[in-house]
């Protein structure tokens, strides 16, 4: 499987603290889960891949240019209607008004929120706001989607709905890289697991293998701790 992103000797520090060091990675899978304890560097790694942060050393290489987008743990919507929020990203990319409207409405329908089209985005529930954030990136039709704990602050029902949407986005051909604390979610969604601990990438393993026979003692200890 040819890779679509490569990280070479990646290092990132914040002040004097080393957040990530010596990350060597080639991703070829369509659905990747990024797991590890708090402070492992998962969010930082996503931001480095997405280009929101710059590495202090090493490089992020895209063998061929791919359009990308990111959804954050907390949905961040503008103080305007749901429709305008979704159209905003398309507007930034120069999509015509008519096409914007068409794509925004279609994305809203796919996340099951067509009835909220004229509502104020920030007045909706956390689950609805996260679905709108997903609709906003889905409308952009990215080839790669980074997700940073997209269901961390949601109730089970909303979590289920968001997972369904992520599954559909992946099924439409978008590559997914998702940081998550939810091991069940990683199992359900991902094909491959990246295990990070203390800023180091310890494993890159197919999902079934990771949950049955993790390669490193650190991952075994983490799974034992998390699954009780």
């Amino acid at each position, binding site marked *: 499987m040819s890779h679509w992103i490569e990280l070479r000797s990646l290092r990132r520090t914040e002040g004097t603290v080393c957040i990530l060091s010596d990350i060597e990675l080639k991703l070829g899978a369509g659905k990747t889960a990024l797991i590890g304890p708090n402070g492992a560097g998962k969010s930082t790694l996503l931001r480095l891949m*997405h280009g929101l942060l710059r590495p202090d050393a090493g490089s992020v290489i895209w063998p061929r240019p791919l359009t990308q987008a990111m959804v954050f743990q907390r949905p961040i919507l503008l103080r305007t209607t749901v429709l305008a929020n979704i159209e905003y990203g398309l507007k930034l990319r120069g999509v015509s008004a008519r096409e914007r409207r068409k794509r925004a409405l279609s994305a809203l329908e796919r996340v099951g929120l067509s009835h909220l089209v004229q509502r104020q985005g920030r*007045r909706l529930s956390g689950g609805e706001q996260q679905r709108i954030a997903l609709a906003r990136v889905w409308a952009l039709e990215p080839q790669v989607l980074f997700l940073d704990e997209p269901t961390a602050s949601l109730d089970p029902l909303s979590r289920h709905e968001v997972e369904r949407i992520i599954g559909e986005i992946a099924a439409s051909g978008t590559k997914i890289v998702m940081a998550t604390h939810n091991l069940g979610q990683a199992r359900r969604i991902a094909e491959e697991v990246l295990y990070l601990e203390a800023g180091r990438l310890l494993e890159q393993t197919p999902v079934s293998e990771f949950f049955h026979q993790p390669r490193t003692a650190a991952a075994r200890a983490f799974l034992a701790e998390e699954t009780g």
Partner: protein
Amino acid sequence: MSEIAQSLTLASELIATGDNRLAAIVGLSLQVSLSATLLSCALGIPLGALLAVGRFPGRHALIILFNGLMGLPPVVVGLLVYLLLSRAGPLGELGLLFTPTAMVIAQTVLVMPIIAALTLQVIEDEWHEYREQLRSLGASRLRAGRTLIWNARFSLTTAGLAGFGRAIAEVGAVMIVGGNIDGVTRVMTTTIALETSKGDLPLALALGAILITVVLLVNAVAFFLRQWAEKRWG
């Protein structure tokens, strides 16, 4: 005591009867201060947003400058604008001294830094919250600044109202550059100062009451606007 009571009665009569002289002074005050506030918003809001989201050499110096200019003494501003517009000054040929336009310029110099500094604070908070999301969606800093101005429109309206409050209540600068000419550049604050010194308390009191009402109204509007916007937009 009876003199004060008598003055208060006369002041109430002036307001109640809509005295022409009083109305002209209030009208000019509102016209000058509203113009200065609008001009200050047009300049100060983009400038404050640029300082909040931009990264360029001298940015910190500009932030310190604008924060410092918030406390500019009005008489000093009046003096500087006077020198600028006086016959021997660089803009003397325009003949603007002792006109309402000169007063608008002086109040703009006073109010613009306030609006820029308040905008900077508001947009910095917004930038902190939205930076990653806007950059992720592909917004340039300039575009992000524009988006955040719109996103923070209600907070910025409050900043504008604060600027208007400062302008309408200011006396030193307009006194110097306007000259307090009856029927031409006489506004509420300069009239209050003049009439009090002359001992004509009824007009001064009537204008004082109107001025306080305007300032209170502006603050009430700012307060309710914020509450309404919070409920409406989140």
